[in-house]
């Protein structure tokens, strides 16, 4: 969290008159309120997310036992009973849910019926894989999208602008799953430029688990061949994912920059005789960044959606693939785990967006 929200130094100082004390309280108040509200939101969201997933998953006209036991085993009532007992499915639904919440409080997400491992273990490999993919994609999207948007705004209504507009609209219109298919076919199958599926070449050992992001872990461990290999595997799926977000960010940055360009303070900065570069980077971009940050937060959500469709094609062992498998096999603990992680990511991204607001805009920070 940004230290800028911390109570100001002067407010911490010694006693004084009435207004002084009041100001001190005021200085602390927003932060406390902010944190409190955030925590409350997080808890509510967690309960909401788990409840929704729980109810939805139990609506499915299927039986987890059938999905997870073999053809023969399912014919044996003793085995089915044993399975239900093991996963607590023999208890009434409300009890199951409360038990789940109780375990959740202790950090226990339950055991996946599919993988027979704790959901936490499963997630600890799936989540970093997806974060690595989505993270790489968001970084690329931000760099490319923001630059495109700025260029389009500066070249408003001219050829470059029109071209970038078509490109960005193409980006948001192309079905991700189809693009993934096409990219894989062309760059891997036809041209052989991209390495195959998965996060690393077969036979290459994963770097020691620190963050779970192979590129970072490999770099930290100094395993450069592994690093480059991981980057190679990351490139194509990440680029496919960026199509949508680049389009989105381009369009947004463009309109944000255009709006700022129309502001009096930009005209005033030009009237000061500042070089165009300074005006662009210090005056225009700073203000245009505020809406862009919001959209970047949203874009991250869109990326997580995209991974569901892309991961299967690139055999990327991430959250999307895990979510799909869990949802279609009624793996209740796993689905709930995915829901929680996703909710958590949402909160974190929102928090990051808020913090960035504070960093960018003093009106948010200084009150």
């Amino acid at each position, binding site marked *: 969290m940004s230290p800028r929200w911390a109570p100001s130094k002067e407010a911490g100082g010694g006693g004084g008159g009435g207004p002084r004390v009041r100001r001190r309280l005021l200085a602390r108040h927003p932060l406390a309120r902010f944190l409190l509200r955030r925590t409350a939101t997080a808890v509510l969201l967690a309960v909401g997310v788990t409840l929704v997933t729980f109810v939805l998953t139990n609506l*499915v*006209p*299927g*039986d*987890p036992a*059938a*999905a*997870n*036991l*073999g*053809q*023969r*085993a*399912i*014919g*044996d009532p*003793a*085995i089915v009973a*044993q399975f239900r007992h093991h996963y607590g499915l023999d208890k009434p639904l409300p009890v199951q849910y409360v038990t789940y919440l109780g375990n959740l409080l202790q950090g226990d997400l339950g055991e996946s019926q*599919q*993988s*027979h*491992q704790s959901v936490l273990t*499963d997630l600890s*490999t*799936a989540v970093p894989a997806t974060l690595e993919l989505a993270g790489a994609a968001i970084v690329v999207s931000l760099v490319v999208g923001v630059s495109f948007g700025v260029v389009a705004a500066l070249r408003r209504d001219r050829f470059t602008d029109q071209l970038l507009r078509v490109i960005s609209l193409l980006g948001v219109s192309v079905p991700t799953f189809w693009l993934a298919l096409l990219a*894989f076919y062309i760059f*891997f*199958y036809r041209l*052989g430029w991209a*390495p*195959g*599926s*998965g996060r690393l*070449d*077969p*036979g290459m050992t994963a770097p020691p688990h620190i963050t779970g992001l192979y590129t970072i872990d490999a770099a930290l461990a100094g395993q450069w061949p592994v690093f480059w290999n991981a980057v190679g595997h990351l490139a194509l799926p990440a680029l496919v994912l960026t199509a949508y977000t680049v389009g989105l960010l381009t369009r947004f940055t463009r309109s944000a920059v255009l709006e700022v360009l129309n502001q009096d303070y930009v005209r005033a900065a030009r009237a000061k005789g500042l070089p165009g570069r300074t005006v662009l980077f210090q005056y225009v971009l700073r203000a245009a960044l505020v809406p862009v940050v919001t959209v970047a937060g949203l874009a991250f959500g869109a990326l997580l959606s995209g991974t569901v469709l892309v991961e*299967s*094609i690139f*055999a990327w*062992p991430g959250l999307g*693939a*895990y979510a799909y*498998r869990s949802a*279609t*096999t*009624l793996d209740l603990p796993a689905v709930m785990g995915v829901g929680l992680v996703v909710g958590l990511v949402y909160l974190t991204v929102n928090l990051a967006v808020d913090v960035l607001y504070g960093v960018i805009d003093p009106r948010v920070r200084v009150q």
Partner: protein
Amino acid sequence: SGSSAGKTLVVDTSFNLKTADPGREFEPTGQIVDKALYETLLTFKGSDVTKPVPGLASSYEQSADGKTLTLHLRTGAKFADGSAVTADDVVFSLNRVIALKGNPSFLLDGVTVTKTDASTVTLVSKKANPALPFILPNPALGILSAKTVQAHGGSATATDGAEKYLNTASAGSGPYTLTSFNTNTEVVLTKNPKYTGADKPSYDKIVIRNVQAPTQKLNVQRGDSQIALDLTSDQVSGIGGGLKVDSGASSDVIFLLLNRNTKVSSTTANAKFAEAVRKGIDYKSLLSLAGSGSVQPAGIIPSTFLGALPASEAAGRDLAGAKAALKASGIAKPSVTLGYASDLTVDGLSLQTLAERVQAQLKEVGITVTLAPAPTTTELDNYRNGKEQLGLWYWGPDYPDPSDYLTFLPGNLVGLRAGWKAGADPALTTLGDQAATTIGDDTRKTLYEQIQTKLNTDGPFVPLMQPSRNTVYAASVTGVAYNPVWTIDVAALGAK
């Protein structure tokens, strides 16, 4: 890359994997993994599943009543940790499978395991169990080191907690040990230097990766992997680049089910209607979907098994006959729904595709088929509870013995799923009981043939096909052989 020089073998398959614990696993990928990690008492050689051969047991005898099986253990067998394989380990391992009540526990239904002496184990079944020697090779019945398993929370009771450990390391005497295990991504096996079996493994390391079929093809073509296990005939056709293909009929039998329960559908319960369906299907056209290598079984028992009906008895299309039968059924404009698992593929052939073609074929007869695809989970529930009017499923053998197919008889597991209650066909039931307890291949063969012939005319099942099973492999790999129980024995592969 790979091949003998690197001593790493990469096998691509589409994972169906939950655990590496033999007492709990019964999924195709689990079978591949455990086959390499654990030795079983008896085993099969290559593709030949008609004759069990020695594994950890060097020989066995079966009693005349078919109830007792005595096994003599091979001397000198050692686990990967160096300790000797004892009769106690065998008793522990098999009892554990029974007690866990997991997916494979039915293999030893009604069997008690006792140690006779230090090198002899006796298996006694409640009923005559002539199939037991064919069951024992199943990798789920692999022998674990009792000491190691117990040290990690294992016990031969329902509260056994060794699964977690067995998913990180192996406790067997097989040619490989487990290095890493992930049910979603890949499994890595490392050569067991202390392996005491006859044929030492060739590769230092084997990586089994979870890859979807289309990608498997690209990978193996580009040399990223050496073996692709799940390619369809379409995908295999015209594959070049020095790759070899091992094709043959799979032992999975895809069949149509017509529910006998009038409450579910009075249409499908109608015998004449069933006949119309049976005659209305164009089996050859279905085979063309599965490509070369696929065959049409004449009965429910796959063509390579004992008791299979000769191919000449296979049904063929008779459109006029079908229409006549439909007329005779008295049902005007029949309309039924066909349930199937839309996400299920059988040896690369998607049930989806098959269902669409069946729909089109029956339309020509005058039967309206509404497709009702559902995720496996949901559809399995319908199937298991006998709620499907028409169902499209397959049966993969649990062990390569025709007795596995008695489940299709009235009142039995699959029979019930077709609404075929016990006593619905007493003659068949009697034949079935006889077949289950009779010993002697020839007698059994005749009995099973009779059962199938009767099933084909009176039963609610229409066997459609055994899809083709293609293994694509690099020229450097030798010893590739498809086995219906464990698909492929990766430890038996050699390098050129």
